[in-house]
């Protein structure tokens, strides 16, 4: 789903964090994919693992870190929803011109 700040805030206020996480995750993946394609036009997003692998190959340090962190959030059960959401908000802000906070 496309990034929609009003929808994000509305769901955040309703404590529908799952929705917010999903929206941010999808859009972060899209942005990272665009960045990777600038270096490797043949790149196709398959899963978060192949995104991370290609991010490590082609992207700068801070975007590599985003890809690594995203992978960690998806597969580790150590993180609270709110922690993930907070981190994703920062990640999205650093990748886009949006000022969410």
């Amino acid at each position, binding site marked *: 789903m496309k990034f929609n700040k009003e929808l994000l805030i509305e769901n955040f206020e309703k404590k529908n*964090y*799952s929705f917010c*996480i*999903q929206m941010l*995750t999808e859009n972060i993946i899209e942005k990272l994919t665009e960045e990777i394609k600038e270096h490797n036009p*043949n790149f196709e997003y*398959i*899963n*978060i*693992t*192949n995104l*991370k*692998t*290609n991010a*490590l*190959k082609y992207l700068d*340090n*801070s975007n*590599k*870190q985003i890809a*690594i*962190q995203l*992978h*960690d*959030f*998806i*597969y*580790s*059960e150590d*993180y*609270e*929803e*709110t*922690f993930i959401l*907070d*981190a994703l908000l920062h990640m999205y802000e650093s990748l886009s011109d949006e000022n969410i906070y």
Partner: protein
Amino acid sequence: MESRDVWSFESSLASSKKFRSTKPREYKYLQEFYFDTFIPYLRNIINSHPEYSYEDLERHIKIDITKLSEAIFEGSDVYHIYLETIACNYLANKPEKLSNLLDQMIKPEFRDTFETDVYSYVLPRQNEDGSNLDDLFVEYVSSIMKPEYNSQQRIHNSEYGGTFKEMCMQYLVEALPWYLEEKASAETRITNTNPEYIAIINSERKKGTPNKDIFSKVKKLYTKEFEPTFINSMNFDADLNLLVYGLPFYLTNDLDEKSPDETLAKILRKNLKNSIVQINSQFNKFGFTKRAQDIRKAKFTDLGIGNFADRLTDASYTSDEELAAAIEQLDLENLMAYNTSLTNRYSKEATSLAEAFFVTYQYDLLRKFQDPEVERFFRLKDAMDTHTETDPNLVYIIDKNSEYPTKEDLFRALRVLYPLKPSYIAIRKRITSLPEARKDASKVSIPGLIHEIRKAYPTREEFERAMERMQDFYPTQDELNIALDKMAFLFNPTKYFVNEVQDEIDTDQDAFESSINLTEEEELELFGNVSNNPNIIRYSQRPYISYMLENYENQYKDYFDSRFRLLPEYSKKSHPESDLSKDASKYLRFYTPIFYSYKFKDNFINSLVALTLDNKSSFKNAGIILDSESDDKTYGRISFLTGIGIDANLTSPVQVHCIEPAIAAFLKEFTGDTIIPVYEGMDDYKGISNQSVFPFSPGIKKHLKALAKDTTLPERASAYVRRINALSLGKLPESIINAQPSSSGKSKKKSVFKRRYIDIKTGELFNIENGNYVPVQPYVQTIQDAIPLSDTTKDSGEGYEI
């Protein structure tokens, strides 16, 4: 390695503080783990090796950590190989799909990916009778594939993983060269035995004789010509099958565990067995098995089935050989479920262990443990534990005149021996709640416990000295929190570094190894031994330490030293200086197995989901765990942190937690939709944790059968026992069948259990009818619901398609 400035000290610290704020009770779990599990592990080493110097002890522990780390690598290929068996099974049973896929693999868009030159002529794909894939075609497909795509390294990248179709292609990329090689060998062997057989196969084929008749004809000839022992020794049947049926036979054979060849199924079993035995062995060594057994005993005793817990403990496999023999009885899917359960536990246990090791190192406790006085103290604790456990009715005799030990001495000893408040309170409560104590507390003295104190410390002076010393032995809550804060700080930069290292290995292993090699001295220093395992790469910490020092050295020291200075006990005992190079070195060492257990988690969640989808599997109940359902049972709700459940042929259901997006992502890429089976009947065992999972022994099965019939059991215990009994028999539990609403209509009409599915994205629930997903009928409570259901039916649908 390049210098990185990804995480500034301030951002790393801020992130770690936020993370730690979500786990305010972590220090308590660490305390419990440390006292109940880690200290016994250390003491066991020390008591088994009284001759050890401190350096010997350190080396022993380094080797233990190395073996723990290496155990997780045993199963690194398992999940990908399992997904390949699914692909293989699919292609073996659908020859038309196999043929289409091979056809697609030579199309320009697929060829371009491999950057090869292309021949544009068209080869015949099948024999004239359409029954075979022409080997020339297969050979052509195989020849145009880039050689490096056959390498094992690609498996770990998951770069070409993704859709089920791509998984099938990857499998064929690996399998085709092997097939061609084996077929050529089979032809050579049969030619050497009798070249006429090949001539007969070819001529019968030209006549259009069906494959099964060709096979029978040639088989009759060699059965007549040769003795059975010779035929078996030459494996004629397999060779003949390969020559007559070609690639489809090769695929079917690749799933055959009884084949004399090295098949995919056999490789999978070998990998699974190694992984299960190794991880289980580590759990036994570090005390995780015992801990799980103790927790189970407590839970089961509350339920009223404490005896069953004892039986399970007695039946658990303490030796690698016993376990290896027991798991031979399990089929591959059950082994997959078992291995997944163990791997999932591994990441949690390895984290607890990493924390305990870090604390031990941080506060130099290892040296203290070797002190004979400390061991003397712990022996007193062992004796006290024995008394309090085995003497439920401690007898009290007054001894008011005793000067040593007094009742106050006893309670002081208990405070020091059981620093965890709940344990101390529990024991004190037991002692003071006894009837004699309630009548007159001054009349109470406890001979058993008093006797042990006197035995351990014959004089008051020795006792006082020991209590004072041990008072400060354990890290305090604040000290534990500082250690945890350090680990939380080190986590992100270390994770980043390890990811970069793995990427460099995946890109060019030779270049990596030459750039970051270890001297033998360094290897011994870090790992305690020199490796002879060709599948595991050990690398120097030097770049990592340099990076950490460059970015964080002074700020780290300043920040954490200031934390120690603020501790109330700072002036009373010495505290370590915060030396980043030492802290980071230890942390990387402890953290590596945790990183790899999570690295493999994407594959094992994917294969776990695939297990639930595979309708050919033996699991009657496997799928996603619902949080709740609508009243009419047409919709289900899934939590963000959800899980996959599988009722396997093991002593407990297998459950793995994961977040919903991870499952949805795999489903979408693998099947094209987001529908997954529902796991039923969690209420039977909700809140009854049994982490010590293993295959059933005949004794346990017998005990369960009898226990399931016991009508005196409390309801909750009865539901649990019946559930586990069903697992032992490989049957669908009655509780699941009975929970489904009956069909409406005539009374006493038998209804059938229908497996349910859920669309993760919409929450809508489905059954499968005639291969299609059909929304479940809304549930309306009727009188018919009182009639129990007893029939089951298999699904008729497919889990996935290409």
